[in-house]
């Protein structure tokens, strides 16, 4: 039980559009253990983004229970939701979502600003460490517009990491990146996962899903397949291949 990071019980979300109820998620049961690397796949409208929002405590379920790191989140207030997002979850978005005209360091420091427990004594040191971890030690005073897409996503990843969350949630993390940079970013995800960090990501590219350890396929608000990947791709080797191909070409 201690090893379970995510456990949903009949998690349901229904949107009201006018008088009509639109079910987005129908009684989903998922359990994700510590150290897993899960890719959630599905066509648009399959409910994967809704699931992602619920897992990220950005939205509240219509019914069902969601246990995050042993805490039942269904009964929490809005402020407690905010605190959970701050303490337990690191987000990585498709569009990076960094603050413009704000340096990489300040972007990474942002979650620590809202840290009410004050558990981190030196936010700046901690943020620099996070940036070093994603390999951007030499870019800490650059603003997003001075960084490449891959670098921006790595800043976002450092921001997700800085609070030592129980879980990193990535929503199409490489959707805005070319395939070479994407592989580079996945290399980082795999590396962090190897260090024991739980990663859950949404993607619709099967190639990228193969970097994960487990795939959850969704359709019409339900989980239709849930399986472990047998021939998992190693992003580091893939990157070497791409580099080699580029040399030949």
């Amino acid at each position, binding site marked *: 039980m201690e090893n379970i990071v995510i456990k949903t019980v009949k998690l349901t979300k229904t949107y009201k559009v006018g008088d009509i109820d639109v079910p987005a998620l129908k009684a989903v049961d998922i359990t994700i253990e510590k150290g897993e690397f899960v890719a959630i796949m599905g066509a648009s409208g399959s409910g994967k983004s809704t699931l992602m929002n619920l897992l990220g405590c950005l939205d509240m379920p219509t019914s069902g229970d969601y246990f995050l790191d042993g805490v039942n989140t269904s009964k929490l207030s*809005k402020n407690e939701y905010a605190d959970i997002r701050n303490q337990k979850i690191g987000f990585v978005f498709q569009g990076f979502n960094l603050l413009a005209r704000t340096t990489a360091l300040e972007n990474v420091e942002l979650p620590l600003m809202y840290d009410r427990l004050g558990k981190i004594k030196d936010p700046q040191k901690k943020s620099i460490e996070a940036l070093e971890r994603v390999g951007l030690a030499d870019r800490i005073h650059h603003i997003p517009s001075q960084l490449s897409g891959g670098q921006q996503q790595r800043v976002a990843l450092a921001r997700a990491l800085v609070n030592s969350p129980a879980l990193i949630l990535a929503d199409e993390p490489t959707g805005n990146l070319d395939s070479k940079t994407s592989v580079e970013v996945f290399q980082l995800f795999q590396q962090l996962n190897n260090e024991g960090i739980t990663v859950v990501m949404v993607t619709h590219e099967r190639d990228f899903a193969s970097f994960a350890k487990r795939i959850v396929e969704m359709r019409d608000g339900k989980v239709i397949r849930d399986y472990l990947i047998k021939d998992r791709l190693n992003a580091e080797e893939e990157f070497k291949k791409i580099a080699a191909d580029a040399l030949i070409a």
Partner: protein
Amino acid sequence: MQAKVILKVATKSIMKSRMRSLLTALGIIIGVSAVVVMVAIGDGAQLKVEQQIASLGSNLIIITPGASNTGGVRGGSGTFNRFTFDDVDKIKNEATLIKGISPVVSSRGQVIGGVGNWSTTINGVSPDYLDIRAWPLQSGEFFTDRDIMARSKVCVLGTEVVKNLFPNDDPIGQLIRIRSVPFKVIGVLKEKGQTSVGTSNDDVILAPSKTVLDRLSGGKFISSIQVSSVSSDRSDAAQAELKSIMRESHKLTPGEADDFTIRDQSDLTEAATQTSKVLTILLASVAGVSLVVGGIGIMNIMLVSVTERTREIGIRLSIGARASDILIQFLTEAIVLSLTGGIIGVLLSFIIAFILNHYTDQTAYIKPQIIMIAFGFAGAIGIFFGFYPARKAAALNPIDALRYE
């Protein structure tokens, strides 16, 4: 979040769009400096009026005889006149809060001299009188204590009298006859204009008190005693002192009513200050409107800013900011904007006041309180007009805010 961090974040986002922030603050700058300058002009005008009244003799205290009380029947004011030179001397010797004292022996009579004759008031006074009434001479000289002791037949004319008796000549050195008694004109008073009740101050002849008492009014009592206190704020104390001296002088027992009345000019001062106060309030409220308009400007820009920064709000919410954090952030921005505007506005008003005081005949007097009030108002406007946009920002849903393009 700590206050220091909140302030830092607010200043940073204000500095990110400098031009816009400056234009937003401009409303407050103009509002605050308008209020401060308007009130300063009002206060300046008030100060000037007070000075003018002081120059008319605001320190002036007049002691007049009281009512008679004979067998239960009380006469009107002045029916019981027992003022003598003894009273004047006693006050002169004992009072500590007075600057000058003059008896006034009043008499009316026909005056012949120069081109014709003229009926006017003749006041017998002491040399202090000019100083008590803040009334300078236009030409010639005033009589001295020696003239009083010698009961010299000299006099000083008001301009109205000069106009009627000596329209073309210099009156000084001429002889006039007041009720057949010849007097030598030794000086002419400066024009003083109307009294507060509408009669002319200048239709008067001043002569030594004892001369008038002996030669014209033919009695031994003085019409009134005029005194000037050392300063206008000691006027009340001076009056109390005069009262006890007068009671002693008239040997009144503790239960007995005063047989004299003491008055000062405070009612006149009050009326004049009231007028300029009303003027100040009027000016300040007009300027206050511009301050409110400045506040609306802040609200407007903050609303635009919230819409523009919806994505930023979404990011902050997604990484764990509470709605209250967002509220405080935007509210702080509004307050920092308005207070900065307030500071610049106050500085600007000092410059304007300096220009007014040095290059125009307008007086602007900036009281310290008004600066505090203007600051307080600027801050209050920041809170009031910043609250609605801040609440709007705080009410955003993180998912919608993140999706906002």
